[in-house]
């Protein structure tokens, strides 16, 4: 029922990438997920692979060199990402940062949660899918 969706996660923290991928896999096998280790790497990837248009981008705020906010500004300028929903995420949410990223065109701010179930629920809602866990049907 769901056509295949593409998501891209940009995070310098390999543990967080892994947790994120784990959560995505658990809620749907139909969502492909690619990773980039920092903003520069993501931009090089997107610029060199013109046919690649992710539906969702999850962008860490604090990264070495180019941080998430600088990266967001560049991504928003890319014509073919016009339909792409970009979410920023980080360990803590500072209200001024949340305000700034929304003004820059990000969909929302996600706090990296302690419990993976919280992240899974959040992602399911974003992807608009229903998934099953512990025998319960979760609806978005």
């Amino acid at each position, binding site marked *: 029922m769901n056509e295949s969706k593409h998501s891209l996660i940009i995070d310098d*923290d390999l*543990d967080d990438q892994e947790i994120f991928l784990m959560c995505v896999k658990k809620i749907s096998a139909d969502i492909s997920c690619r990773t980039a280790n920092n903003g520069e790497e993501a931009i090089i990837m997107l610029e060199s692979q013109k046919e690649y248009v992710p539906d969702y981008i999850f962008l860490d705020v604090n990264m070495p060199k180019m941080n998430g906010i600088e990266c967001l500004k560049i991504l928003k300028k890319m014509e073919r990402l016009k339909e792409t929903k970009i979410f920023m995420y*980080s*360990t803590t949410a*500072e209200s001024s940062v949340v305000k700034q990223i929304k003004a820059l065109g990000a969909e929302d701010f996600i706090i990296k949660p302690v*419990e*993976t179930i919280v992240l899974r629920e959040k992602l399911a809602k974003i992807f608009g899918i229903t998934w099953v866990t512990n025998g319960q049907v979760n609806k978005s």
Partner: protein
Amino acid sequence: MNEKPVILGDFKNTNDLYSRMVAEIQDYAIILMDKEGIIRNWNKGAQKIKQYTSDEIIGKHFSIFYLPEDLAVNMPQQLINEASLNGRSTQEGWRKRKDGSRFWGSITITALHDDDNCIIGFSKVTRDLTAKKIDEDKLRISEERYHRMIAEVQDYAIILLSPNGIIENWNIGAQNIKGYSANEVIGKRFDLFYTEEDRKNKLPDSLLDEARYKGKATQEGWRLRKNGSKFWGTIVITALHGKDGQLIGFSKVTRDLTEKKIADEKLLSYTAELEIQNSELEQFAYVASHDLQEPLRKIQTFAELIQENYTDEAFVKSYFKKLDKSAKRLSELVKSLLEYSRLSKDKNIDEYNSGVGEVDLNNIITEVKLDFELLIEEKDAIIKCAHLPTITGSAIQLGQLFSNLISNSLKFSNTKPIIEISWAIVNKNQIPNAPSALSEGKYFQISFEDNGIGFEQKYDKKIFSLFQRLHGKQDYAGTGIGLSLCKKIVENHAGTINVLSSLGHGATFDVYLPSN
């Protein structure tokens, strides 16, 4: 001896009348004396002023009215001599009445001549000006006291200016505050207390104009003393007017408020510093909580995942390892944060830190090399070091500084690390991007040059910020505090730190520390 008939003889009617007039005058003592000064005639006024009757006084010498001190200098004879010579003599002074009391007499002695122009006697007219004298004395004393008061006021410079700003009077306060003595400055224009810039802007003239039109002018500003030093003066110039309303000059009262001004400025700079510290603290609290939460969150997440997958042995093993790594990282962060905050607390090393003294940097290098012995061996690193100077500072902090810089060079290297430490003496103006707060003078430039991975020069500021890292955590270990610590240490020592680098071509950290 009896010459009375010579003078009074040959009366005519008019003369008789004239004599009566003189005799009856009450406000002036009019006395006729012979050429020796013996009293021959005496009017009512004389009796009233000097209390003697005619009978008592006629035949006596007029020196009877004079005080012993005047007699000692032979004043009566001198007055007679002068009148003989010039026709008349005048004098004012204290005289004695019959009862011994005194009066202030104003006298005129006039010589009388016969037809052959020979002196035949003298008239002496005396007026009692005691009341006037007392009033005048009172006024004079009061004026004198007033002038003394102004002259001796120490804390205010009180200056009298002419209508065009020439200094006419000068008190001790003015001398204290401005350093000039009265005779150095009277006759000069008051412009000389103003700075060159104020003079260029015609401030002295515009203040006089303001006082001229509004009655007074007030101002605060830096003024010049005689020795060229400056003081913060607050001044009031008031226009002075004569009875007809004509401007006759200005009074200028100046107070030296330098100490207050300096205290005010200190307060302002303390406040500004406090504000900076506050915002630094806020920033610190934010990044600290963020960076501490990150490993903490991971520990919790890993624990949850282990619990969910406890039957999967491989998974549990792998995630325990991750959990342990995060815990170690958390502990490392807490430790270096503690180090950093201790450093901030001991900011004023001059005041608090008992560990401040002469530090031989060669000893520091030896200690740091010892600390990194294993790593140096493992990486086959070479540390070349010139003979370094001895500087004033905190041995502990300088040890941390050297340790952090050398460990960075060892860490951010993919080949055999070569680290070169050299030094030079430079002037402040030779320091690139020197912060404006840096004092003038000479600095030790201590350079740490490596052949490591380097970085793009555009990150030269960012790398000194707290928790800013240029590399993913998986590539190079570290907390992102090391270089912030270095910056803080250098700032604690009233110095600065710069870095030159390009990607793949090593980095050179230049530490500048005051050389005196």
